[in-house]
């Protein structure tokens, strides 16, 4: 008897990985998202409420372009940012409406 793990399904031993400096690219956790938040940069006041309210730290500020950026790799679509945004700048869009939507990908990520 032998157990063979195919190359494309290999996982690190005991799931132990080098510590992520910013984000854990080996374990992306957003493939159960049903909706994604869409930001209107015109309405956005850069108040950072979305940044502060996201449980997965998926909002960050791009200083160079002066705008908020969304991290699709870890957003679960919980919509807290949409609810909390005082400027009403974020709205929910169905994941299936996007060509790169997590449900459309044959092998997510």
């Amino acid at each position: 008897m032998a157990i063979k793990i195919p190359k494309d399904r290999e996982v690190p031993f005991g799931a132990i990985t080098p510590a992520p400096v910013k984000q854990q690219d080996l374990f992306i956790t957003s493939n159960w998202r049903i909706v994604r938040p869409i930001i209107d940069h015109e309405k956005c006041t850069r108040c950072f409420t979305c940044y502060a309210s996201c449980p997965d730290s998926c909002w960050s500020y791009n200083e160079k372009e002066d705008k908020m950026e969304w991290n699709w790799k870890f957003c679960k679509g919980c919509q807290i940012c949409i609810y909390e945004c005082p400027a009403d700048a974020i709205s929910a869009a169905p994941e299936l409406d996007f060509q790169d939507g997590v449900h459309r990908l044959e092998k997510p990520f």
Partner: protein
Amino acid sequence: MAKEMMLSGCAAAAQGAKFAEIEVTASYPIRPYTAIMMELAKMIANGELDCEFVHGEGEHAQVSIVLGASACGARAYVGSAGVGVTYAFELYSPVAGGRYPLQMAIADRTLDPPGDFGSEHTDAMSARDQGWLMGWASTPQEVLDNTLINYRVGEDPRVMLPQFVCQDGYFLSHIPDKVILPELAQVREFLPPYKAPHPLSPACPVSHGPQIRPDQGAPMDAQRAATFLVVPKVIEEAVADYNRIFGRNLAPWLEKFMMDDAEVAFFIQGAHANTCKSAIRHLRDQGLKAGMVRPRWVRPWPTQQIAEALANTKAVACVETSTSYGGATRGGNLIHEVSASLYDLDKRPLLTSFMAGLGGDVILLDDFYYMAKILKQMVEEKKTRQKVYWVGFEDET
């Protein structure tokens, strides 16, 4: 010169941990295992053992503490009994899945229905499928042996798995017997210091226990299952080394007692095996060719060895010391695995099981004679009337 001492199972476990030079342990009291922690605390206070001793606020915390210690590269030791074992249950799979080769001593205690404190194997047996190595000792000497052998096997780079080192509560944990204490130099030869492959350290940051995706779960399971295919070889190497270094004669898998010409056999784990052996001597005096097979490991299960040991018998009785309510036989756990082990034999022995030694009940010689009577009857009738008998609770009409 090796020293001999009278030690209870608990004291023998603590001596084993001391000789293994454990670095971190975590305690929370529940009898009968508590005496292990009392012994360890004494050793630390007396300066015999250099070990961090952390008090957990419960068994869940205890195992969490040693998980963290093991992740940092320490040789970690913990223990519990009964409902303490089940309270820590959430940790068992992550400890095995994260590949932390820590050791947990279990001195069995009945799970609450309510509040019995006697010995029964159900507490530890409930955790047998969590990916740990597991086995029962039958004497204080074997407790010490198993403590060292389990660390050696668990910490092997090919294995990297935690270990449940089990002993019967009271019958073994609290009854002293002669134990040969090894020399520290011998132990160090047998069990080199633990080297974690990826310890948590600021010098080389790594991430342990991260969230993984559902499609990464199955390969993790396969990875763990594949490890169990390697474990048997490592166990055989470790036991051979143990016998060589300590001048002992331990069997890697099974203790076989009077099995050479046995027609009927008891399959039993733990300290009740000692009573079983006395019963067999008396049964032999009366002309019944009885024998006993006692597994030293439950995980990995010695499938092949059990099939070979029982192949030439006519009838086998699993003496169940744990419960599996509503299971295949409505009795215990061992018969499931023994059935699976024997199924592919060309000529299978008849097989039944006896529920005995539950809730702290002593299995008396008379109980073994009752079982032998039924085994004899099975051989004569060439059939199994019942797959399970509740010893002492059967309607004899």
